[in-house]
């Protein structure tokens, strides 16, 4: 498949005006460059908490997204050493969550190339701090898909600088963090909303960052819109007023900003004290089951670690192990008493 595509991805994109948007991600200066109006708003929305006033030439990280009309316009040349690492249909398999996007992952020397077929191609060069995306007719793509592709590209760059993303909801109370990790449909967002409405502060719905802080691991906010299903909306009366009541294509989810519905502010960088792995049970009362550190790391790995660059993956693995050692990890058997969850968790968080 790689060979067949090489010939069709060698043309160059015509010259178009480019816009540059500066951001600062926890001390890392990043610029986003694009020539397409359709590729501006989704990224501006995703990174609204990280905007920076001035454009600096010395940005450490650059993400450049361009629009193309079809695959022949993607100016990608693969070397003879390029090799396919993996491919998928986008369906959930084993520990991997569903994305709905068929893909092929290619390594070409120090570059990692994610080929999403009719959607576009990402080329990530973490060691040089640069990612390029070529999106096919982006005006036809849903903004959430554009956000997803940008997030994939940028977090790969972050990993080379010691900031790792983890698939979890994250909240904070009195400087102590809770991560709620696991695949979709296990009660992650419902448990997160139960805590938010009781006064916990919001860090992220699905993708907080973690960083080795020396003596411990910190969790850092990456506050994006919260995605909810119709079933979740029906559980929480306040969600009837979700302002952005537009479903994602295919996923039947709605989204809103936490700060638009809940009085709590965005939380701050903090030390995680607890990691929960929820699953919904047919019982009235929820209860917690303490997990061994080994089991906790086993459950965390598929929610965080993608092994592209072995050296980077080795460092990330050790940070995840450190996180698992520092926190109390529980399996949350999540019953129907969803509004009582803070009563179950807060005493443990405060005594931990």
């Amino acid at each position, binding site marked *: 498949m790689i060979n067949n595509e090489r010939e069709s991805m060698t043309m160059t994109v015509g010259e178009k005006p480019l816009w540059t948007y500066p951001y600062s991600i926890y001390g890392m200066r990043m610029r986003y460059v694009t020539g397409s109006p359709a590729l501006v708003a989704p990224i501006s929305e995703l990174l609204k908490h990280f905007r920076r006033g001035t454009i600096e030439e010395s940005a450490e990280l650059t993400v450049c997204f361009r629009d193309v009309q079809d695959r022949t316009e993607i100016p990608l040349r693969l070397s003879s050493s390029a090799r396919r690492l993996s491919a998928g249909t986008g369906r959930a398999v084993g520990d991997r969550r569903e994305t709905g996007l068929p893909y092929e992952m290619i390594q070409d020397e120090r570059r990692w190339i994610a080929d999403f077929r009719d959607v576009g191609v990402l080329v990530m060069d973490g060691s040089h701090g640069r990612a390029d995306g070529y999106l096919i007719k982006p005006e036809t793509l849903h903004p959430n898909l554009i956000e997803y592709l940008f997030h994939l590209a940028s977090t790969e760059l972050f990993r080379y600088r010691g900031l790792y993303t983890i698939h979890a909801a994250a909240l904070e109370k009195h400087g102590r963090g809770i991560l709620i990790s696991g695949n979709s449909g296990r009660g992650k967002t419902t448990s997160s909303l139960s805590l938010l409405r009781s006064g916990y502060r919001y860090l992220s719905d699905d993708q907080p960052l973690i960083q080795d802080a020396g003596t411990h691991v910190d969790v850092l906010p990456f506050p994006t819109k919260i995605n909810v299903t119709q079933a979740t909306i029906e559980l929480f009366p306040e969600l009837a007023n979700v302002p952005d009541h537009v479903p994602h294509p295919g996923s039947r989810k709605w989204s809103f900003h936490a700060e638009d519905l809940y009085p709590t502010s965005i939380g701050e960088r903090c030390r995680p004290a607890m990691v929960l792995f929820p699953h919904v049970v047919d019982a009235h009362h929820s209860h917690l089951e303490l997990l061994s550190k080994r089991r906790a790391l*086993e459950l965390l790995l598929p929610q965080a670690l993608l*092994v592209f660059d072995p050296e980077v993956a080795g460092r990330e693995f050790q940070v995840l192990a450190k996180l698992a050692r520092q926190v109390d990890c529980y399996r949350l058997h999540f019953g129907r008493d969803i509004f009582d969850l803070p009563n179950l968790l807060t005493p443990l968080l405060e005594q931990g």
Partner: protein
Amino acid sequence: MSDSLERTLFMTDSKDAVDCTMLDRIILRPSDDAQSANMEGETVLLALSTGRYYTLNRVGSVIWEHCTGQNTVRDIHAKLCEDFEVAPEQALDDLIVLVNQLVQEGLLQQEVKKV
């Protein structure tokens, strides 16, 4: 002591297997491809080239921790017999099985000590 290494289902390729006539001379060390984390006495291993990860139970973890590039298979066997109530023959059998699995998965390297 059996089932020290979880998540692996394979037959050991005999060309990689530990030569049981040279247990006093075979030294074991982690391969560059392996990352390990001790989690309260149990060990999680990650093979960087494949992204596969494995779990060692407490006995397996003791074996892994002695695979430092200094100890022979015989040294590690002696340590197991000291630390655990186990028949020496059983300890050796289980040790060889686990070492062969770890070598087969590319997590452990063996080399012959020069005399």
